[in-house]
């Protein structure tokens, strides 16, 4: 009976909730709505530009009890925050060829598991809530447009 349960649990684990989808906000459109602000794109630049350098940002955060995110381990935080700030500091007005990776996203099953474990821990009074370190890495090419952003 115990063996059958173990096999069933392993099968259920392998089949259920194996997917994690991470979404981030929209980047710049072409033509850009305004020539002010930072042009951000995973593609190239819509006009002539000079490359100033490359930048990489690693956002760190903590996921508490499977659902509550704290820190900067989201896609929007590092891109609109640290990446854009660094580009601006370098004298750029755009970051192109942006690449990103949520290094350890949490699947629905893992979220539910962490939440259930946290509740169990709190109820038993033995341990605290479950916390998981989260990392997001973003890289890009910092550019300065020659003329207005198209």
């Amino acid at each position, binding site marked *: 009976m115990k063996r059958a349960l173990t096999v069933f649990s*392993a*099968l259920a*684990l*392998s*089949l259920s909730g*194996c*997917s*994690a*989808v*991470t*979404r*981030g*906000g*929209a*980047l*710049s*459109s*072409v*033509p850009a709505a305004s020539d002010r602000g930072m042009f951000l*794109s*995973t*593609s*190239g*630049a*819509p006009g002539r530009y000079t490359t100033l350098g490359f930048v990489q940002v690693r956002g760190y955060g903590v996921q508490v009890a499977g659902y509550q995110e704290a820190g900067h381990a989201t*896609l929007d935080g590092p*891109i609109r925050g640290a990446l854009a700030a660094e580009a601006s500091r370098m004298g750029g007005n755009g970051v192109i*060829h942006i*690449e*990103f*990776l*949520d290094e350890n*996203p949490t*699947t629905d099953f893992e979220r539910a598991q962490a939440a259930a474990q946290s509740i169990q821990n709190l109820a038993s009074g033995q341990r605290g809530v479950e916390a998981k370190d989260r990392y997001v890495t973003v890289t890009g090419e910092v550019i300065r447009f020659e003329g207005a952003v198209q």
Partner: protein
Amino acid sequence: MVDSPVPMRPVAASLLLLAGCTASTFTRLPSPDPIRPFVTAEGIPAGSPYDSLGLVQVTRRGVLVFGFADPAGTEVDAALEELELEARKAGADGVVNARVLKQPWTLAERITGAVLFFLPLPSEVTVTGEFVRLRKATAGSVP
């Protein structure tokens, strides 16, 4: 028996060790279909107008049972199917700058997994990209 100038046993052992050290993974995309969102590793060609609808990352994680069975769908095509579904939800025409990340198991490792069936092999695939909606000038055409 004639003595070989090359010691055969060490050569055979080396070949056995080296065989199956390369692991490859591939997926074939369906033919271009104007109804389905397109997925490309390229960006939008310079000068083509488009709207960015956001970034997306799809990760599928599971285990390979008996070294080969993939009940959780952690192959690239499963992740691309899910990406397509997300693109539809977002109202995107397609996904540009798609990147695939997967650490495949070699044949030797899979066979080991089949023999040691009680130790399932962890498996994961990640696809990232940007949802875009093409402006009317280029709508319907795959960049």
